[in-house]
């Protein structure tokens, strides 16, 4: 396959970026998208040029590190797939591909295709945890969880925190991410003691990080590599309303 790539290049967080054109020949359709970029980087290194910086880690679709917006869609054209698991057979010989970093005010670009997503970590620190006293573990059967609730909590917990929802949202809203984290704990007995405080603090942190407001267009759900449903946003709205009105702290 022969491809024309338009790639966002940016020296550092302070410099102004631009789209750079590259021609890449001999791409196999069995390569993953990231392997295609590896080939491009080898070519650039041989030419004595600066390779393209991009985020990646597990390359098996479970860590949420890869973060490319491919032709305007975070993680590219294949549904429910991270870009590391996207294969070049999804593209045609002679295609032009636009590769950009995940964009949001709260995700400043550090270099080329890498944006700083630590805002998501700070949201988790604000309340995305449960407090467990260290001691002998209690009997597992002391906390009954229904199959339905367990399944639903697992669906929410499928979020790998990649930030594609934010990258896809025209408002850079992090509602789907926060909603997945809030719902995951709100559905389980272990999450109950901090339930109200959690949703209030995580939403407050989300505002402080500068993420936008949700307009219910559901682009987040469409690009989510783990298919987290927007029903969790509705659940978080319920959680928030209840906590806002009944919070005793």
């Amino acid at each position, binding site marked *: 396959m022969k491809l024309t790539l338009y790639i966002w290049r940016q020296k550092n967080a302070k410099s102004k970026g631009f789209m750079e054109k590259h021609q890449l020949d001999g791409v196999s359709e069995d390569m993953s998208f990231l392997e295609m970029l590896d080939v491009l980087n080898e070519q650039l290194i041989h030419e004595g040029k600066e390779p393209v910086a991009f985020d990646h880690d597990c390359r098996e679709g479970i860590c949420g590190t890869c973060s490319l917006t491919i032709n305007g869609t975070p993680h590219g054209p294949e549904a429910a797939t991270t870009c590391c698991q996207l294969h070049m057979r999804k593209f045609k010989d002679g295609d032009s591909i636009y590769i950009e970093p995940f964009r*949001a*005010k709260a995700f400043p670009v550090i270099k080329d295709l890498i944006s700083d997503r630590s805002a998501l970590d700070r949201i988790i620190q604000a309340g995305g945890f449960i407090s467990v006293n260290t001691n002998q573990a209690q009997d597992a059967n002391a906390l009954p969880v229904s199959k339905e609730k367990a399944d639903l909590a697992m669906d929410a917990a499928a979020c790998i925190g990649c930030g594609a929802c934010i990258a896809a949202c025209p408002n850079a809203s992090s509602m789907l991410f926060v909603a997945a984290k809030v719902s995951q704990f709100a559905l389980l007995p272990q999450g109950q003691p901090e339930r109200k405080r959690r949703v209030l603090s995580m939403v407050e942190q989300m505002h402080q990080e500068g993420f*936008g407001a949700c307009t*219910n267009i559901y682009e987040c759900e469409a690009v989510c590599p783990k298919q987290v449903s927007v029903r969790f946003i509705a659940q978080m*709205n319920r959680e928030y309303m209840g906590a806002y009105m009944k919070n005793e702290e």
Partner: protein
Amino acid sequence: MSIVSYLKSTILSKIVMAVTGIILLLFLIGHTLGNLQIFIGREVFNQYAYFLQSTGELLWVFRAVMLLSAILHIVTSVYLKFYNLKAKPQKYAVTNYVKATLSSRTMIWTGIAIACFLAYHLLHFTFGVTNPEHTKYNGYVEKGAGLYVEYNMPVPELIEGKYIEIPDGKILFKQKDVYKMVILGFKNPFISIVYIIGVIIVGFHLNHAIQSAFQTLGLNHPRYSPSIIAGSSTFSFLIALGLISIPVSVLLGIIGGVA
């Protein structure tokens, strides 16, 4: 705590958008059903209009609620729009939407268009500013007969909403001829087209708005959500169809032959 401190939370802002939107929608439903009475006839339609006018203080309470809802809806949406623009300062070189509908992405623009249309609508029919010749007519109902009569001669001593005996022995009841006002307005093709376009934009706005309000208020469930989304579209279509049917019928001469 200021009245607009809810703006600090995007979720509370969205709830304000949903609740004020629902209040405005409830009015629109009533307004549509009420106005469709024009197809029953002049007597019924004018009596309905007279009934609304005669509610006194209640009318002002109702107008205050509508005005407050509209102001909150507009202020919150404009605030959120700027807030959201700030959250995504840099756009992509290539934009591609997978799932978002056109109506969901253009809410602020259809909203602004609706605000302009609403201002014109009020200036035209409610305040009689743009076409005062449409709103000046009165009609008279004869007591007992229940029939609507139009007197060409001016009867200035008749007071609106009171039965008065006129020299020829008939007892008349004076009310505004709202029917004639609507017919005269929509006989003008330019005004009719503005209304039809305005109502289509309202329908387009509602298509996203109704299901969005459900989501914001936390009502999303896999069993009901597909019906809510389909219902939202169908309902918006019916509202728009109902409202468009009036100017179209006037233009085609189906109603208002007499006026």
